[in-house]
């Protein structure tokens, strides 16, 4: 079949700039073939190459004694003792989800699960962080329904419990929703599988589902802004099949036990191209592929289509040839394709054959290593004016609380998480709803805690502080269940990096995240960058999602109880009443003003350590974030089915969002002991009230718990159900 001629329009349609095309000419010394142009486009787009972000990602702390493998592989690997490792990553599927919410979100979950089991880990927990446009926007409801059903449809069938997540609504996401999917798996620390190929003449094996035309050019699509032609992009969204993924996972894990796997890589963005190049490059080898042997779902597929297809549920593996029969039998048992499609070669070549023709012949190491890298100009976000506290009129505290819990941003999210299987595997200790999700490490006394956090309005006001705050909140959420934070994965969602202001947000956020993960000892072990989240020039709020994992070594360390009638309410940390960029200011006064709350990393660490060292004295604990003391006290009371009396009635003290704070429920004797311990540790602590009765009372303002609970539990469904 003749391939189209390379024209200026064709180059542009592949998202390659004239400079980038010149660079291709320089590298190969001739005009590329159509397939080669596609391959370069796939390798060099923003999504795969991180060309705008790489310079800054390198500055992030990625090491620590707990880290077995940091960024660069399919997912990060972290030691949890007893020769066990937790393997995790978060990845965005924003652009596809906006175009086709169900399949976009579903395949986002599929992709992240594959990243985890490719490394030899059985997925044990999933989370998702979702950002949608304002509730009244005509697309929002359809996106929420589609995305949530897509996540559930995939994860529920696959059989991984969804244990946490977050969702927000803001007009800035009207034209670009965010779907960030997280997965974590468990493996033996000495049985981790990596992507580097080794050995010349080793068979390259194609595993899993057949290749179709779905998703051709998907990664390039995800690296562009949206405009009115968005509907035309629907065919670039892949279609997920969780049943095949489940079989692929079981077959892959079974295959790994046979010793047949030399290296393995899942086919995600830019499918066969990216996976083959990565395995070859990491192993210092060339790769030859014979495309006629690729299992195909459709007829007359071209080399170009096969190399760029993003069909789901596929893997590429370098096989130990002496184990071929055993390996093939495993895949036959699970009724999946197993085909030798090529071999590793000594020369530095990426050689693609189809029929009797050479469709591509490129220097592999250069193809992989020479992706452009940009030092994009950036402009620091100017400092914003502090909010004048006197400009915020006081509010009746119960009215303030009702405004928050009646808004979909702060209402209970059970409408979402009850659509997810939160308990499959029967190791879930704490289902979503309040703070971190917790699962037991099967057949051990250990537990893992998972959280996902970011407050985009803070990041917009002050990228550096907002970046640090996201990490600090994740740290606190893990701490509040008694976990020691281990490591972090970041999913950095921003607008168009070619704009200096957007790049400034990115750089600022990275600085804040870097400082915080260093201070709190939770290095970045994996992550993903999603840029160009803009529609018609309107960017999203800067949204660097931070997902973090913590370890609870024994049951004694865990804080998993509920507030009960008679418990004392203790507040740890200092309250100054910071209302700038607060939830109350936004929801009640419709004002997005002031600076993000300052983050004192040293105080975060000290207060976190205090909670962990005194876990035995604490019945229940929650971190204070959006909505401050008022929302935390209500949520804790609501979860414990008890009323609460808080003496404070000052608006700023109740709704301020000062950081490094926790609310504790414990009995009287424990409260005394905690006050003593806090004094010794130099940690501010105050008794703010107690859990009792069947009303929520702030100062003299009071309402029945049942009434507030009904509002809290019903508002989300009312808004988008």
């Amino acid at each position, binding site marked *: 079949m003749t391939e189209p001629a390379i024209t200026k329009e064709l180059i542009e349609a592949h998202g390659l700039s004239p400079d980038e095309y010149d660079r291709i000419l320089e590298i190969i010394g001739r005009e590329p073939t159509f397939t080669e142009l596609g391959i370069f486009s796939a390798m060099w787009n923003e999504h795969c190459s991180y060309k705008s972000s790489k310079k800054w990602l390198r500055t992030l702390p990625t090491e620590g004694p707990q880290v077995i493998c940091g960024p660069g592989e399919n997912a990060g690997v972290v030691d949890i003792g007893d020769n066990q490792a937790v393997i995790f990553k978060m990845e965005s599927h924003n652009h596809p989800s906006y175009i086709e919410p169900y399949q976009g979100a579903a395949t986002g979950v599929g992709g992240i699960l594959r990243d985890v089991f490719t490394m030899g880990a059985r997925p044990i927990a999933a989370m998702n962080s979702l950002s949608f446009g304002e509730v009244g926007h005509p697309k929002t409801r359809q996106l929420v329904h589609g995305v949530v059903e897509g996540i559930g449809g995939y994860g*529920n069938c696959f059989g991984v419990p969804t244990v946490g997540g977050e969702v927000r609504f803001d007009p800035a996401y009207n034209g670009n929703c965010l779907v960030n999917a997280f997965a974590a798996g468990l493996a033996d620390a000495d049985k981790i599988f990596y992507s580097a190929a080794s050995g010349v003449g080793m068979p390259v094996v194609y595993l899993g589902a057949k290749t179709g035309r779905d998703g051709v050019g998907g990664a390039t699509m995800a690296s562009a802004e949206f405009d009115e032609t968005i509907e035309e992009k629907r065919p670039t969204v892949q279609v997920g*099949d969780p049943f095949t993924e489940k079989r692929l996972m079981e077959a892959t894990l079974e295959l790994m036990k046979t010793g047949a796997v030399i290296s393995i890589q899942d086919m995600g963005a830019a499918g066969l191209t990216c996976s083959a190049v990565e395995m070859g490059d990491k192993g210092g080898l060339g790769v030859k592929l014979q495309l006629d042997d690729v299992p195909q779902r459709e007829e007359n597929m071209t080399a170009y289509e096969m190399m760029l297809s993003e069909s789901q549920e596929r893997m590429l593996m370098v096989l130990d040839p002496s184990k071929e029969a055993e390996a093939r039998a495993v895949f036959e048992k699970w009724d999946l394709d197993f085909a030798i499609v090529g071999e590793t070669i000594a020369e530095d070549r990426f050689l693609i054959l189809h029929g009797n023709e050479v469709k591509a012949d490129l220097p592999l190491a250069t193809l992989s290593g020479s992706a452009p890298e940009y030092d994009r100009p950036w402009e620091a976000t100017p400092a914003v004016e502090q909010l004048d506290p006197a400009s915020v009129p006081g509010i009746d505290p119960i009215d303030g609380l009702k405004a928050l819990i009646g808004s979909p941003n702060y209402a209970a999210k059970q409408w979402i998480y009850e659509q997810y299987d939160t*308990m*499959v595997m*029967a*190791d879930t*200790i704490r289902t979503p709803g309040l703070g971190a999700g917790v699962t037991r490490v099967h057949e051990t006394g250990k537990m893992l805690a998972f959280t996902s956090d970011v407050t985009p309005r803070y990041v917009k006001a002050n990228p550096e502080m907002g970046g640090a705050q996201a990490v600090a909140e994740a740290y606190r959420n893990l701490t509040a269940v008694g976990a020691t934070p281990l490591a972090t994965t970041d999913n950095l969602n921003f607008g168009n990096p070619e704009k200096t202001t957007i790049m400034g947000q990115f750089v600022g956020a990275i600085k804040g995240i870097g400082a915080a993960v260093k201070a709190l000892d939770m290095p970045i072990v994996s992550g993903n960058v999603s840029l160009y989240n803009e529609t018609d020039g309107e960017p999203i709020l800067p949204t660097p999602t931070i997902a973090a994992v913590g370890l609870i070594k024994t049951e004694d360390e865990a804080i998993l109880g509920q507030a009960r009638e008679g418990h004392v309410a203790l507040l740890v940390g200092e309250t100054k009443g910071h209302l700038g960029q607060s939830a109350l200011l936004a929801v009640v006064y419709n004002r997005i003003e002031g600076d993000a709350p300052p983050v004192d990393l040293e105080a975060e660490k000290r207060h976190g350590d205090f909670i962990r060292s005194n876990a035995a004295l604490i019945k229940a604990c929650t971190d204070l974030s959006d909505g401050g003391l008022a929302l935390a006290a209500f949520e804790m009371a609501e979860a414990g089915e008890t009323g609460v009396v808080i003496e404070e009635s000052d608006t700023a003290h109740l709704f301020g969002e000062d950081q490094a704070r926790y609310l504790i429920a414990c009995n009287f004797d424990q409260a005394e002991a905690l006050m003593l311990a806090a004094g010794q540790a130099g940690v501010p602590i105050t008794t703010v009230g107690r859990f009792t009765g069947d009303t929520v009372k702030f100062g003299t303002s009071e309402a029945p718990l049942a009434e507030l609970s009904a509002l809290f539990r019903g508002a989300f469904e009312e808004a988008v159900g």
Partner: protein
Amino acid sequence: MHAAVIVFPGSNCDRDLAVALEKAGAKVSMVWHKDTDLPSGVDLIGIPGGFSFGDYLRCGAIAANSPICRSVVKHAEAGGYVMGICNGFQVLTETGLLPGALRRNANLKYICKPVKLRVEACDSIYHAGYEAGQEITIPIAHHDGNYYVDDAKLAQLKDEGRIAFSYIDNPNGSVADIAGVVSKNRRVLGMMPHPERMAETAHGGTDGKPMFDGLMREMALV
């Protein structure tokens, strides 16, 4: 007691069910769907939750025609014990071992949450650990748990005391709030809720445990 847990390629509660049975003291064999024979001496067959063959067609329809299900039917017809949970219940209705069908939930959504059940007066080994009328909390997790039988069949189920468990607050639209039913000889149970997910303190409740403990005791007497 020797239990066999059937594993379809899309089963995902097979391990959970095996763990619950083992903790109650059973010896458990996992049996692959392509096998044609059950291990010898099997007393109880467990058909676990999950998405047996993806359930893109009617849930459990393909599984009911898999090689091992012929042996499951034979086992039941010979008076053997079979328990099907969630997808397992769907499979059992598709094999015809239990009456009725499981339709899409009335709200058309997947629902996963703990629900309150009433233990019905039903004389089966699966009820041995409970009192009739007792209220228990067990999680559900399904998209297609809306049980349907026609009026005549419903009357018959009631007459014969074959309603095993009922929802106190019907989550999915099931006819007569039915959460589970048994066969005429009371040896085949199908239920949508997952007792294996509420069988240890760490699960946040143990209301599912008496089912496994009770059936172990009864099996010892059989």
